[in-house]
């Protein structure tokens, strides 16, 4: 032990150039003969250099902290910080997106005013009409004229569909309330064409959200849900996409958030520029990082591309309203999605097993 202490202090003196010539010669002799000593010298030298650097930087940091106290940071920041008005800032940052959204709205209203031709499609058309009448109820006469069409169309076929997505691995499916409203029996069908019977589990007509539970015994666990739910709001111009079942196969729709409010300034919803069709209702709206930012729930009739989505915040509200222990491997909130960084096609590949067609019979 004493020898070690002495050796260490000699090494330190050697590295600091404090040995006299005789000692120096003796030590260098020892060092060249004994690789263990040589290794100790090299390691200690590296250590001392790091310590030296650490000492310099620590002192510099302490001096800077002293200088920093002198500064009235908040007085300066009041002068240089970005414009306090949120509106001005949003305008500055999103000029182009707002311009697109604005021109879009103008176009949309022009089309809405100019054309009222009622060349409705067959089949899944029902859903859209139901949705429109639902909007009319909850949002007061925005497109009241259409209510007439809706009533007319309601006499048509009795089977319609929508989209839903898994919120846990054990068969809880989220969709729109308007999709399943008044249904006698409900089925979901996955992208391989297999159907399962589901029942209504939770309904929230105000936010247009419903949660279904698979009752079929043949249903097997889906595995952990790949997406997560975004807690914060999406911004205007944010790229988003949706998967849905406007036909019997899953269809990808791509676009961006065009307004922070839905129809008639409805703060529950976003307006999105994605071409959606009857059957898309209840589909997940995802951003590029694989976070769910909303649920598609309607579109402006007579206009292509102006669709609406319920904000993700209300999905979280609905999820919090049901017993948590019934959901196994529940979808996460505000967490990093495992889809982050993947390309769009890889994301879709992973997500499509969790998106279902909702089949409604009444």
């Amino acid at each position, binding site marked *: *032990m004493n020898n*070690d*202490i002495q050796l*260490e*202090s000699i090494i330190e003196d050697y590295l600091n150039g404090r040995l006299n010539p005789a000692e120096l010669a003796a030590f260098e002799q020892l060092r060249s003969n004994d690789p263990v000593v040589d290794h100790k010298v090299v*390691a*200690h030298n590296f*250590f*001392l250099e*790091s*310590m*030296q*650097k*650490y*000492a310099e*930087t*620590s*002192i*510099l*940091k302490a*001096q*800077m902290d*002293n*200088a*920093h106290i*002198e*500064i*009235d*940071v*908040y*007085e*300066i*920041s009041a*002068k*240089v*910080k*970005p414009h306090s008005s949120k509106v001005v800032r949003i305008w500055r*940052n999103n000029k182009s997106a707002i311009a697109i959204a604005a021109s879009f709205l103008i176009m949309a209203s022009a089309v809405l005013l100019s054309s009222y031709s009622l060349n409705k499609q067959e089949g899944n058309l029902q859903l859209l009409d139901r949705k429109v009448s639902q909007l009319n109820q909850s949002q007061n006469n925005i497109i009241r004229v259409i209510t007439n069409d809706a009533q007319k169309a309601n006499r048509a076929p009795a089977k319609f569909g929508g989209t839903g997505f898994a919120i846990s691995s054990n068969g809880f499916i989220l969709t729109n309330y308007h999709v399943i409203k008044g249904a006698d029996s409900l089925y979901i069908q996955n992208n391989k064409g297999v159907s399962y019977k589901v029942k209504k589990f939770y309904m929230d007509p105000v936010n247009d959200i419903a949660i279904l539970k698979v009752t079929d015994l043949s249903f097997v666990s889906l595995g952990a849900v790949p997406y997560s739910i975004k807690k914060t709001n999406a911004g205007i111009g944010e790229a988003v996409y949706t998967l849905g079942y406007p036909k019997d196969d899953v269809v990808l729709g791509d676009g961006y958030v065009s307004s922070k409010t839905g129809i008639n300034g409805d703060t529950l919803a976003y307006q999105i520029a994605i071409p959606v069709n009857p059957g898309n209702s209840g589909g997940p709206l995802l951003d590029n990082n694989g976070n769910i930012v909303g649920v598609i729930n309607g579109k402006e009739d007579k206009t292509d591309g102006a669709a609406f989505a319920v904000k993700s915040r209300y999905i979280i509200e609905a999820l919090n309203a049901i017993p948590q222990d019934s959901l196994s491997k529940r979808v996460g909130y505000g967490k990093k999605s495992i889809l*982050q960084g993947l390309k769009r096609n890889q994301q879709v590949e992973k997500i499509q097993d969790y998106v279902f067609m909702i089949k409604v019979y009444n």
Partner: protein
Amino acid sequence: MSIKLSSSIPTDREVVLGILNNSEEALNKLYLGYFPMVLQFILNNSGDEADAKDVYQEAIIVLYDKIKSGKFELSSKLKTYLYSVSRRIWLKKLAQQSKKTNNIADFEDVLAVDEDFERHEEKDQQFDQMKKALDNLGEPCKTIIQDFYIHNLSMQDICEKFGYTNTDNAKTQKYKCLQRLKKLFFQL
């Protein structure tokens, strides 16, 4: 205050000479002179006052190393250099927080400082390594080591400060501490 500050920005020559001579006054002047510029940049690019302080201090450390190593040429303006380094550091932090870095609001010209930045990152890692090792060392070892290696106290001073009966005891203690510290440092 800030009017006084902006009028007291030192010349680049003053700063370089001051730093080479370890003048604390030169550092103070430099620090006060350019902080508002970096604060403005950070606040306008989704950071806050604390971020500005961290980034600015890191940038000054980079400048220090550059000047001390004799590589700083007065051909580039000090202001532009500090701004560019701060900007580079902040972009990296933004990227780490996975925030967007494509819409940066700029207030000054920007130089390419990637090389200096990378060198700094290496050194910074070494600094963190030593800091972690010291933090894990525990007392009284941490203070003994800092007194000896950073504050340059002699073994005699340390012996008195910690109340060891003789310098040999103090030396033994310091040796034990140093062995533990080196073990921690080289393991990290």
